[in-house]
């Protein structure tokens, strides 16, 4: 973690959080004093060297805060008089977001599994088993010959033939485990089992549908979220909505000779899990790419083209900042 502070009429501080940084190099490309240099991004991402993704020259940094405003990963924090500029009206605001609608969410956990940054946690309470399956089952102990066929066949491990005395047995059904599938009834050689399956019977049951519902909550951690769109794509009920930081497209140079199988640098640095290697060639899924450019930085063939057409950063009041940031959407 790198920190630069300056005290004076205003106390300014800049802090780089390497855990959030992905080495995209956006800060380095817009720094007006060229005080930020990219480190060896791929070796850092692979854990081969212990360094920060970026190196900020404390002597030349003018503490303007442009890098902090433009970082799509919120990896740079800039404070004036202990107040984060992202909370200040005068400074730009990202119009990037990821949201999960609790009313629509069915707590399937697909987003939790897919999220490349582990930013989503789903906690759910399943309905009680006995509320979902209703039936009646009875074992005629007189007819039962304690053969244990039902016990062996029961898929729910719900029937136990217990020895109660030297020559006495009892067949016991655990109604919490029984799902009334009727396997025991069909298999019983002495027709000792009487059962009614509610889902098979031609009659209505008074079932409370509220008891069938799965309850829970889905929490999306904005500090970890990179707005990649995985949750939105994978959600079966369209409960997740994501606004990415940039709009545009990613493509490859026509004459690029990709050695994806041996290189896969782009795949290793992508924070969005948007890159796969298909038939030896890198393949970036635009649905999940946020156009950060980390892949383009590390591609040894310089074969990845990031063409941003729009930056969803609003309220850029300073003309000089607009000029610096316009370079990000001018193609790469």
């Amino acid at each position, binding site marked *: 973690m790198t920190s630069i502070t300056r005290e004076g009429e205003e106390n300014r501080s800049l802090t780089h959080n390497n855990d959030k940084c992905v080495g995209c190099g956006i800060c380095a490309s817009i720094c007006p004093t060229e005080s930020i240099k990219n480190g*060896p991004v791929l*070796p850092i991402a*692979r854990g081969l060297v212990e360094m920060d993704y970026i190196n900020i020259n404390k002597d030349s940094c003018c503490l303007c805060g442009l890098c902090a405003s433009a970082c799509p990963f919120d990896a740079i924090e800039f404070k004036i008089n202990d107040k984060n500029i992202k909370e200040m009206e005068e400074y730009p605001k990202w119009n990037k977001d990821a949201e999960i609608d609790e009313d629509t969410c069915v707590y399937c956990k697909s987003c939790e599994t897919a999220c490349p940054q582990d930013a989503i946690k789903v906690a759910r309470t399943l309905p009680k088993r006995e509320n979902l399956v209703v039936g009646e089952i009875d074992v005629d102990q007189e007819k039962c010959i304690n053969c244990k066929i039902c016990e062996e066949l029961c898929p729910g491990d719900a029937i136990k033939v217990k020895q109660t005395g030297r020559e006495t047995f009892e067949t016991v059904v655990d109604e919490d485990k029984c799902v009334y599938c009727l396997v025991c009834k069909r298999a019983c050689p002495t027709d000792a089992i009487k059962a009614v399956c509610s889902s098979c019977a031609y009659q209505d049951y008074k079932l409370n549908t509220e008891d069938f519902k799965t309850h829970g909550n889905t929490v999306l951690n904005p500090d970890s979220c990179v707005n990649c769109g995985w949750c939105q794509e994978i959600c079966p009920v369209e409960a997740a909505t994501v606004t990415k930081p940039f709009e545009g497209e990613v493509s490859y140079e026509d004459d690029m*000779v990709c*050695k994806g*199988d*041996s*290189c896969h640098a782009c795949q290793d640095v992508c924070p969005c899990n948007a890159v796969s290697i298909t038939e030896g060639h890198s393949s970036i899924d635009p649905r999940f790419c946020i156009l950060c450019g980390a892949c383009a930085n590390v591609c*040894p*063939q310089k074969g990845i083209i990031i063409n941003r057409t729009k930056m969803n950063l609003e309220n850029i009041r300073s003309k000089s900042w607009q000029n610096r940031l316009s370079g990000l959407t001018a193609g790469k």
Partner: protein
Amino acid sequence: MKSICLYILIVEWDIIIVKVLEVRLVPVTIDIDKCGKIDNCPGEGLCIKLCEQGALIEKDDDVVLISENCDDCDLCIQNCPNQAISKV
């Protein structure tokens, strides 16, 4: 791995036989003056760690290029902290 192909035409019993000879080129070269070997490499032999093809290996604290394993991916060239690796 870069290679060139030599096509040799042989006429034998009125049959044209095409023989293809593949001549492999060493794709990268290590500048021994720039390379700090492993002891003096800021990445402690970073090129060896990065190369998954086994084209750069450690031998007697030095980096040895096994050219036939090189896939020509250029990762070593891009990431060498001493800029000691380049294309031939």
